[in-house]
């Protein structure tokens, strides 16, 4: 027992459990029970129709590509913020969290305007013959925006903690900078990179607000899975919405478990190192 003099354990634990129970657990169980009560055939029909499968595929692969892009872009930003001192570094550091703080509908309309044919970025890509807004590429752009801070914020503290001596030792033993990065730094930051990637990926899977404006939402082409839940609800097809939600929720929890075990692995590696 860490402490038994301090009062308030029962009260605070009680408040915490009551709140989580009422706000999160009971409502989520409503979803699970409703989905379970649908019957197998009805569930499969609603959750795995061709249009829904196309939406899962789009959400999955867009989130995967966006998170992969963020793996590299996030590492680059984390590296620069952790290693270099330059004027305005604090400001740059603060702006990284923008996707956390900016409402998703604001991000959605801004990205759409930016990447539409007449927008700054849209015109740039237009010259290359690439259409971004209202295509699956737009979905990826929005998910990349939303996911960037996850990679930066998981990798940056790890990079900051690495002793400069480790690299100096590698260099003094004759390692090139690239070898030092690959053989010394990369193994240390790899767990953080993977955690950040997984978090960005999970966020992309469930993302709604920033995506629906730029996606154009063409069924089977640029329609993401969370949007289909909304569509079903608007058609008063509560069962259909529930079935799709159950699948997305299950996928999210599998991701959560993966992230948690990655973080435990990460902590063990650090404790050992």
């Amino acid at each position: 027992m860490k402490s038994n003099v301090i009062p308030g354990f029962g009260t605070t634990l009680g408040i915490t459990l009551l709140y989580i129970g009422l706000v999160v657990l009971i409502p989520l169980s409503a979803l699970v029970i409703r989905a379970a009560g649908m019957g197998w055939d009805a569930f499969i029909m609603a959750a795995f129709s061709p249009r829904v499968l196309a939406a899962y595929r789009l959400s999955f692969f867009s989130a995967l590509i966006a998170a992969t892009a963020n793996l590299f872009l996030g590492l680059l930003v984390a590296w620069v913020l952790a290693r270099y001192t330059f004027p305005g570094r604090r400001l740059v550091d603060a702006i990284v969290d923008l996707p956390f703080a900016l409402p998703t509908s604001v991000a959605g309309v801004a990205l759409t305007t930016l990447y539409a044919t007449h927008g700054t970025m849209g015109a740039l890509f237009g010259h290359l013959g690439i259409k971004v807004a209202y295509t699956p590429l737009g979905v990826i752009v929005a998910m990349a925006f939303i996911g960037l801070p996850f990679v930066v914020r998981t990798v940056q503290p790890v990079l900051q903690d690495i002793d400069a001596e480790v690299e100096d030792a590698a260099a003094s033993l004759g390692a090139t900078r690239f070898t030092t990065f690959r053989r010394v730094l990369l193994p240390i930051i790899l767990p953080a990179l993977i955690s950040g990637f997984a978090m960005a990926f999970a966020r992309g899977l469930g993302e709604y607000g920033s995506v629906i404006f730029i996606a154009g939402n063409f069924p089977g082409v640029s329609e993401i899975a969370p949007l289909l839940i909304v569509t079903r609800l608007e058609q008063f097809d509560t069962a259909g919405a529930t079935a799709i939600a159950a699948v997305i929720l299950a996928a999210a929890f599998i991701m959560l478990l993966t992230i948690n075990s990655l973080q435990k692995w990460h902590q063990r590696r650090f404790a050992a190192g």
Partner: protein
Amino acid sequence: MRKERWTIGRIVLLAAALLVLVVMLVLPLVVVFGEALAKGIGAYFSTFGQRDTLASVRLTFIIALITVPLNLVFGVAAAWCVAKFEFRLKGLLVSLIDIPFSVSPVISGLVYVLMFGLQGWLGPWLQAHGIKIIFALPGMVLATIFVTMPFVARELIPLMEAQGTEEEEAAVVLGANGWRTFWRVTLPNIRWGLLTGVLICNARAMGEFGAVSVVSGHIRGLTNTMPLQIELLYDGYQAQAAFAVASLLALLALVTLVAKALLEAQPVGARDA
């Protein structure tokens, strides 16, 4: 800190990182303010003279005013029992607090429709008693609480864990009761972290889109928050007005980020001691 030399490699990496941040984060922000002011300052301000838009601003504030204090009480209670005591299944409790992070916002709204909607568990009973939760303020508050629940707790738990329990134990041994210990000893120690948590929670509460969208019903002038009003205006080809509303939320995001950066830059003595 070792001495930094600005080699070409470093300059290239720094420039690349800044380019990534400008393209991915700064440009969307520039678009928001640029489009909001595209028709001049008069048009910008006349947006906020519209009754529906004003109503959306008011509703957004009302929801945040209810949501943030509740999540603040929960966050402090959760952090107190998690950080000051050891108990079985603590890891599980912390995972439960994190659940809303991994649930798609659309699902966060849907679960309340399944509970309180017309086809939901309590729907018929609520209707018989003339109580409206879905497509009304209570549902929007609940959905916002769900989404923003972890923020204060997440900010406080690591902070209070790092501070340990000695000061509280001393206070209790000297005869202070639980409340007094909290107000006089714990609160001064965690005040900056608490403020950061509240600011982030507030920004997310005011900006929540997906979850609130599902339970709102989008009744003009009645159940539209600012993020929903942005969608309504944008889809109604009133882009300038949409961006004017968006600019307020973007401003809120920027203020939140700057305040967070300033709070985190508090000297260690004031923040963590």
